[in-house]
């Protein structure tokens, strides 16, 4: 982006490369992020006026820091692979979907499907998350400071979901090997999801994730663990009523 196309707000931001979405298109933003190469010195980015745009900072594959000043629409930070992305606002559906690595922090609330199919990295939602949080998760760690909605961790395969508040109906329905930790009330458990013992390794795991997510004043021992009963792993007609 040539200097003469930068807005005053952009020039005022100091060292971070500032991208004002009221001045430039989403395409220009994502293209610029995709052009980054290993060793680039443009390691800090700031996105202004996202105004609910979809697909902000998707497919980033370099270890840069991106601060999004405002709320975003669908699929913000989708398929993130290594970047540290902070949304200083709320996020629409599918934030951090299929994340590979890196971290995403949502300062506000997140809509449906947060962290869907995520394979790695850490997604932190400082507010609440809506339904289907962590659906089909495949290795991602998700920490939600508030509550999560119904059908969360549906068919969750791997990874950890830590919820400081409550969980809605049908938590962990048809879950595989993902681990769910909820501090508050669980409205109901889905098919083949059961409460499990919190062993030492789980306390350690939860504490580690709380630390990484910047949570203080909460102890790992306050959480209950939920996971797969593994009764539906191989089809048995006598289990058909479970669905």
């Amino acid at each position: 982006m040539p200097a003469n196309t930068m807005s005053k707000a952009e020039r005022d931001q100091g060292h971070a490369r500032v991208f004002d979405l009221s001045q430039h298109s989403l395409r220009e933003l994502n293209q610029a992020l995709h052009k980054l190469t290993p060793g680039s010195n443009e390691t800090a980015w700031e996105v202004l006026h996202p105004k609910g745009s979809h697909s902000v900072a998707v497919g980033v594959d370099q270890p840069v820091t991106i601060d999004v000043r405002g709320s975003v629409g669908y699929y913000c930070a989708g398929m993130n692979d290594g970047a540290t992305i902070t949304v200083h606002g709320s996020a629409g559906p599918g934030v951090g979907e299929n994340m590979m690595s890196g971290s995403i922090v949502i300062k506000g609330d997140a809509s449906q499907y947060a962290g869907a199919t995520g394979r790695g990295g850490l997604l932190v939602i400082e507010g609440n998350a809506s339904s289907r949080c962590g659906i089909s998760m495949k290795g991602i760690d998700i920490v939600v400071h508030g509550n999560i909605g119904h059908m969360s961790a549906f068919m969750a395969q791997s990874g950890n979901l830590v919820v400081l508040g409550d969980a809605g109906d049908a938590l962990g329905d048809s879950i595989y090997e993902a681990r769910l930790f909820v501090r508050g009330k669980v409205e109901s458990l889905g098919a083949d999801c059961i409460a499990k013992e919190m062993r030492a390794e789980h306390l350690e795991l939860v504490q580690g994730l709380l630390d990484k997510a910047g949570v203080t004043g909460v102890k790992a021992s306050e959480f209950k663990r939920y996971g797969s009963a593994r009764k539906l792993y191989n089809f048995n007609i006598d289990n058909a009523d479970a669905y």
Partner: protein
Amino acid sequence: MTYRNPPTTPRKSATFDDYTLSEIRRAAATGIYDIRGAGAKRKLPHFDDLLFLGASISRYPLEGYRERCDTSVVLGSRHAKKPIELKIPITIAGMSFGSLSGPAKEALGRGATLSGTSTTTGDGGMTEEERGHSKTLVYQYLPSRYGMNPRDLRRADAIEVVVGQGAKPGGGGMLLGQKISDRVAEMRTLPKGIDQRSASRHPDWTGPDDLEIKILELREITDWEKPIYVKVGGARPYYDTALAVKAGADVVVVDGMQGGTAATQEVFIENVGQPTLACIRPAVQALQDLGMHRKVQLIVSGGIRNGADVAKALALGVDAVSIGTAALVALGDNDPRWEAEYNALGTTAGAYDDWHEGRDPAGITTQDPELMKRVDPIAAGRRLANYLKVMTLEAQTIARACGKNSLHNLEPEDLVALSIEAAAMAGVPLAGTNWIPGKNGF
């Protein structure tokens, strides 16, 4: 000598036929529905019910083998910076690594590449075998998202968002425990040996408005380079095609109920979805109504077997066809040379469809290391290329006879139907009449 009344011939019920009776007995004995691979086996109105008229006084033919008859097709020219150009309008449909062995996937890539066409990944992610051996590879974006990652998305030549499949519109993938080997389990992030039933709908979007936003995300991740296909099962082809176009698809893929699957319930395969022939005209009509025919390309699959089927599909307005079952047969699936082994499995060559069990004598629908050695990827790839060449020559033969210098110039007016059903579905006159059922109020 006592008189005996003349006996009646024992009469079996047309309703309760032998197959139906055997299925009732099987269900009663096992308490579980029948699962199998492949597509609908019942008799359906199909391309066999259509005929070309050929040349006459008003239409003169082109010289066979001498005059050029173009077969190439460009897919994805609507939005993609890098559309796909194929030499023939016959592509290889999506089939997963997991349902198919590694050597079988490699053979599909080799055969497609030799023929100048594309092959497609499946519900198990992209393998090095198929990426390495496929010049043009379409990467499926499925509800399960097994193996999905941005690197593979970017090294694909096109992306196919799979909404549904002809064999099971509304059903998800199924891969039973015996085929979940270490490698398959790792690619799918699942424990080894479990029954894998993948999701039937996408985890992070529902409906056409969301799909539009999802397509935008995929385009942004891949910098608008890749053509984006949307694949639907033959459920509501008019509306599904229109909605896919509205959502921004470059290519719409419609898969009729004869299209195969690796495994699902028999009751699903035979009773849900529409025949391929019934899907084509509504899909073409949707494109025409939107002014997008030939701008958004239409691929149709499900029961394509020879060059005549290709030519008929193209004449009805399709841009390209896709083959799955036929490609597997070209590789060696259901080959009578393994008859003794098919018999041992309680079946016969030509009827074997327990692809989910992983015991395929032909070594194609298996993860058994010994069985899969039976597929030589180079020789099988060559057979697929030969077969694709024959199909193309057959289609060209028909097109030239109809006076067309491109397969894409074939048109509905070149066709008549042998049955009222086919005439109504294809929107062409019943042979010997000028009657198109459903047109002009009749």
